[in-house]
């Protein structure tokens, strides 16, 4: 199973995961983490611990809120050398719902491509298409 970690400022990630559960039901392998009160090193170590040992294949998608923020940096550092883990910024609800919908029917690379597209497609000026 491909897992996902939503790591953000404040409680954004926790709430996104909670709301995704309200829409699609409770989910395994979807977790949230906050950077609150944590140094860069602490966040990196927490992400590493969530990923588990590099030797065990555990494909994952890490979703962060802000490109260039501490969550994004820590996630990239924690994923060094892990080809089965992708970090995507700009997390939104559509990406999480897409992840839960497609993770069992897509391989990792395909899932990542679809999630990037889905996240972008979700931003629409309503009433214009």
């Amino acid at each position, binding site marked *: 199973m491909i897992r996902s970690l939503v790591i953000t*400022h404040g409680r954004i990630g926790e709430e996104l995961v909670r709301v995704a559960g309200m829409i699609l039901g409770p989910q395994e392998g979807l977790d949230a983490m906050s950077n609150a*009160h*944590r*140094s*860069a*090193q*602490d966040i990196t170590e927490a992400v590493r611990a969530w990923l588990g040992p590099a030797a065990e294949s555990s494909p994952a998608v890490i979703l962060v809120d*802000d*490109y*260039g*923020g*501490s969550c*994004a*940096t820590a996630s*990239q*550092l924690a994923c*060094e050398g892990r080809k089965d883990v992708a970090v995507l910024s700009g997390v939104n609800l559509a990406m999480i719902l897409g992840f839960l919908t497609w993770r069992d029917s897509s391989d990792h690379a395909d899932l990542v491509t679809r999630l990037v597209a889905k996240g972008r497609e979700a931003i629409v000026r309503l009433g214009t298409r």
Partner: protein
Amino acid sequence: MPVALARIDDRLIHGQVTVGWGAQLRPDLILLANNAIAADAWQTRVYASSVPPEVEVAILSVHAAAARLAEAETSGERILLLTGTPGEMAELVRLGAPVARVNVGGLHYSAGKQEMLPFVYVDRQDLRALRRLLELGVALAAQQVPGGRAHPLGRQQLDEMEARV
């Protein structure tokens, strides 16, 4: 004075720095002084990629950063200088970096540290380095973001903290 902001922040290059202070100060260069990151190509790439493309970024050892700052004294550049610890900032100033005031922007909790402010946790080593900065004539204030409250840190605050760590 080339240093528009000298900041101690254990998250190093992140949103408060690039978006918060960056938008306010419009630096030409973000200079991160950190021996471990400067010596590691992957970490350097990750941190450098966090900086908006219009701002130059340099990640250097503490010694190399001091030399770069000395060069900048005549270049008219505006530099946002970052270290992850008070000790590294004190070392930069000892090496002659032109820094008159230091912004203590974020030192998060880790084992053995005590709270000075909700965004500043320190141990004895941090306090020694902050004291050294004061002795070197540097003014210290804790402030997370532009427009946030600035908490001056003088001898009295450090003495009070010293009794608690």
